[in-house]
């Protein structure tokens, strides 16, 4: 069985580490990291990803553009995407959700909140998937 793979896209090294620690609550998962949207797309070109967790405000390519590019690709159209952001910024968060993100977690975040959100999104995605006869 393939291990669940998370891709954490965040320009702050401290936040990348903190999110990584939180995700380690998922047993035997693999956590990949990228520093911005462009870096994430490079990683996704050769690594299968199960959940994408991204910040919004990043240099080079921000999280909103990343969400848009991912959702525009039919191969990744169903990929669970969670935004983790400080943008109090309902406007940015709403834009992210409209572009196709599945959920968001506000910074400063609690590990439990992120884990719960990931679980909820995965359950929702599994329930929406057509059952194979």
């Amino acid at each position, binding site marked *: 069985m393939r291990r669940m793979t998370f891709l954490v896209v965040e320009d*702050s*090294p*401290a936040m990348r*580490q*903190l999110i990584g620690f939180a995700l380690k609550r998922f047993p035997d998962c693999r956590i990949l990291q990228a520093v911005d949207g462009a870096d994430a797309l490079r990683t996704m070109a050769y690594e299968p990803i199960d959940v994408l967790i991204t910040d919004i405000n990043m240099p080079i390519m921000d999280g909103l553009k990343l969400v848009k590019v991912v959702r525009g690709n039919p191969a990744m159209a169903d990929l669970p995407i969670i935004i983790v952001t*400080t943008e109090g910024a309902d406007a940015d968060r709403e834009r992210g959700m409209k572009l196709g993100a599945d959920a968001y977690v506000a910074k*400063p975040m*609690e*590990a439990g909140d992120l884990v719960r959100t990931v679980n909820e999104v995965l359950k929702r995605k599994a329930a929406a998937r057509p059952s194979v006869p």
Partner: protein
Amino acid sequence: MSGSGHEQFTDRESRLEEALGTVRRLFEEQASSAPGEPAAAVAAATDGTDDLLMNLYVAGLHLHGSLDLHDVLVNLREILINLVGVERFVLYVADSTARNLRAVADETGLVRGPATAGPEGGIVSVVVRTGIPYFAADDDAETTPGGPCVACVPLKMAGAVLGVVKIERLVAHKSGFEQRDHEILNLVGEQSGPALLAAALYRRYLGTQNGTSPGPAGVLFGLLDVAPGTESSQETAP
């Protein structure tokens, strides 16, 4: 111990007593619950402790993760914004008399303002003078001559105040400081000063090397090598 130090100690002691009481109560609740019944309260408390320890570990690691002054300031900024939820802040360093403050960074990055400025007055001056952190009651920003202030944390080292972080505003979705924030800001107060001082000394040391960089290991080796009167040599002296 000074009066203020004693008060801080007493305050910390009572908070620890309170925490111990909570843990005892949770264990009693767990012991009295039916076998196999999930002790949700204990799980939640464990989650909270894990979360706090993760945050403290990450903050400490990143504060001391570099000898580059710019990196230390960037990491401090990241900790305040991402781990505490600070939206606006100013980092001041104080001169040896604690009479002058210099703004060196804010939420946008490094501050390139006037080299020195007098103390802002009000809360900031009190914090620089006493070394006791300030948190506004009910998180209502106190207006100081330099702008609003919801909290002011002294950066300390060996009992001296090297500067302060004045927090002007928290992110909109955060209603106030939680216990976790106090612990992280306490770490920031205790650890930022040494981190900034180490980075500043390292930069100065490199500046004396006429363009040849010995690297951190070379600096440490050189400094330890020339340290006068080590304890062992004193012990062996007649």
